């Protein structure tokens, strides 16, 4: 039902009326999401054969949680993701605060450009480079080296939402705090940081998910006892997909989705007007 009579006849170039738009969109989403939905459905299949549905069961989740290797890998994943995301977010916050100040210093533009580089560089390149670097220093590969590697590629993901939040803040607010007798330290804790919190949490969650999901860097920098869930699942799949893998994958998906939702919720614009004007 069109409410606006002037909209009734679309002009020919209007993208909303291209032929086949609906079909193409439906095919695209089916291609991307149908396999995932099937994987989730099959994780509740009671049959051992992955492709034949015989009935509903939570057995594979029980099996997965009883498997000490899986629990160990999940623990590693959570340790790495927690340490890496917190460290990366702390560093990113400090960097964003410095970069957002309106003074100029040598190399500021260059540093700003380099910050986003880890997102655009193929992950394999820094992974191999770091592997060789650590090897030449004689490091023992394990959780420590993986965490260092993860901190590095997590920094830009944490940095971007924090920086965006800072850009959106009224620069006069810092002056207002100083004008009202807050010295720089108190102005930071009472005025700047509370307003930055949504950006920081958003960056933290993003960094956590990116780290949790990582395969390449973990694979190159890992060693004995640093197997993470993605590495473990990769190992299982090589010997044939079992419903157990479906169960673990579904759980990881659930965790990622909840964290992304949380991140979107926290990062929403809290300064928009909700009251009367």
């Amino acid at each position, binding site marked *: 039902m069109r409410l606006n009579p002037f909209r009734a006849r679309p002009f020919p170039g209007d993208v909303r009326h291209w032929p086949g738009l609906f079909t193409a969109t439906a095919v695209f989403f089916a291609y991307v999401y149908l396999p995932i939905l099937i994987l989730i459905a099959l994780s509740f299949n009671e049959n051992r054969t992955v492709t034949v549905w015989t009935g509903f069961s939570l057995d594979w989740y029980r099996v997965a949680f009883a498997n000490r290797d899986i629990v160990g890998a999940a623990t590693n994943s959570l340790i790495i993701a927690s340490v890496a995301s917190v460290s990366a977010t702390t560093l990113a916050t400090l960097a964003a605060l410095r970069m957002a100040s309106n003074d100029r210093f040598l190399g500021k533009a260059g540093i700003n450009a380099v910050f986003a580089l880890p997102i655009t560089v193929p992950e394999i390149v820094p992974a191999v480079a770091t592997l060789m670097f650590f090897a030449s220093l004689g490091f023992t590969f394990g959780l420590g080296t993986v965490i260092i590697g993860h901190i590095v590629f997590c920094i830009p993901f944490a940095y971007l939402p924090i920086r965006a939040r800072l850009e959106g803040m009224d620069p006069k607010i810092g*002056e207002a*705090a*100083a*004008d*009202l*007798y*807050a*010295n720089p330290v108190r102005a930071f804790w009472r005025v700047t940081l509370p307003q930055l919190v949504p950006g920081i949490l958003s960056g933290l969650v993003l960094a956590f998910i990116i780290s949790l999901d990582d395969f390449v860097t973990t694979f190159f920098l890992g060693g004995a006892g640093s197997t993470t869930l993605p590495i473990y699942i990769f190992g299982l799949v090589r010997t044939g997909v079992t419903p157990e893998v479906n169960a673990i994958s579904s759980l990881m998906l659930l965790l990622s989705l909840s964290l992304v939702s949380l991140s979107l919720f926290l990062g929403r614009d809290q300064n928009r007007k909700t*009251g009367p004007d």
Partner: protein
Amino acid sequence: MNTSTPSSTLSPAQDQCAVSVRSLSKVFGSGAHAFRALDDVSVDIRKNEFFTLLGPSGCGKTTLLRLIAGFEQPTSGAVLLDGEDLSAKPPYQRPVNTVFQNYALFPHMTVSQNISFGLEMLGRPSDEIKRVTEDMLRLVRLESMADRRITQISGGQQQRVALARALAPHPKVLLLDEPLSALDLQLRKDMQLELKRLQTDTGITFVFVTHDQDEALTMSDRIAVMNGGEILQIGTPREIYDKPQHRFVAGFIGEINLVPVQAMGGQDYAISGVGTLRADDASAAAKGGRAVLAIRPERIALSAPSAGTLPGVVTNVVYHGTDTIFHLKLADGLELRARSQNNTAKIQSFAKGDHVGWSVDAASVSVLADDPS
């Protein structure tokens, strides 16, 4: 007719000054990109005064305000508060507060948290903070909004919160940076009276920055008119309006006729091809020198041509309801505008093409130097 009193034009005694600005200059940038925002400005602002800095954008008025607040460091000169040099003090140690143009309220705090922030930072006891915050809420009539978030109140209410927040620590001087510019016309008119009331009630010195001449004339005790980083004239609204001492001041505030003349000596000035006009202005130009007479349109009296008047031809009549504006063409092509109030039903009126006589009381004529600026 002459309302200027000697005391208001002289520099006030030192113990009456809240803020003393001494030869203050501010240069932004350096080398070829240097911009002199403030050029050797000196002004004494008295205690309990509503003092307005008036000028077009880029005239240096906001820079002067920011130098007093401490957000900028002067290139040279000093700012004294109650005789004490503030130069070495950062903004958070200066007993002055600012109402920002876009309010700069803390969006993550409620209305009352915003208002009490300054008192908390000063380390005042909590019962005092509570009492003063409540007083301030009452003063700006926002008692019912105390626990609202800043994002949940209207622009006019935000404006009042910004005022209350800046007044709560009871500063020696309140700086206001075009605080009314974001409000619509009716709200702005109301707030003008409200601000004046607050200033009278609190007895705090207000330094108010605006580019709006109406605001300046309505609220101020004294006005400093600024242009190009300099203060051109300081005086009461009446002095600024009636006796502009500078061509820019005359043109910036209200409508005015600027008539080029030649000094005849004494108080007489010749308008070439028209006649002679008297002006009892102390700043008389030297005999034979060129000058400009500034005459407000409403001070020009129109009548039928007679011996005591100067000649002119009506070229246009514009009716404005409360008054009518007559455009006159003087004999040599000079234009003049006369405004006559429509305050009686029967009024002597003129039509386009009429030959009329016009005259001005000598006290209503200002003599300006004939410089092109």
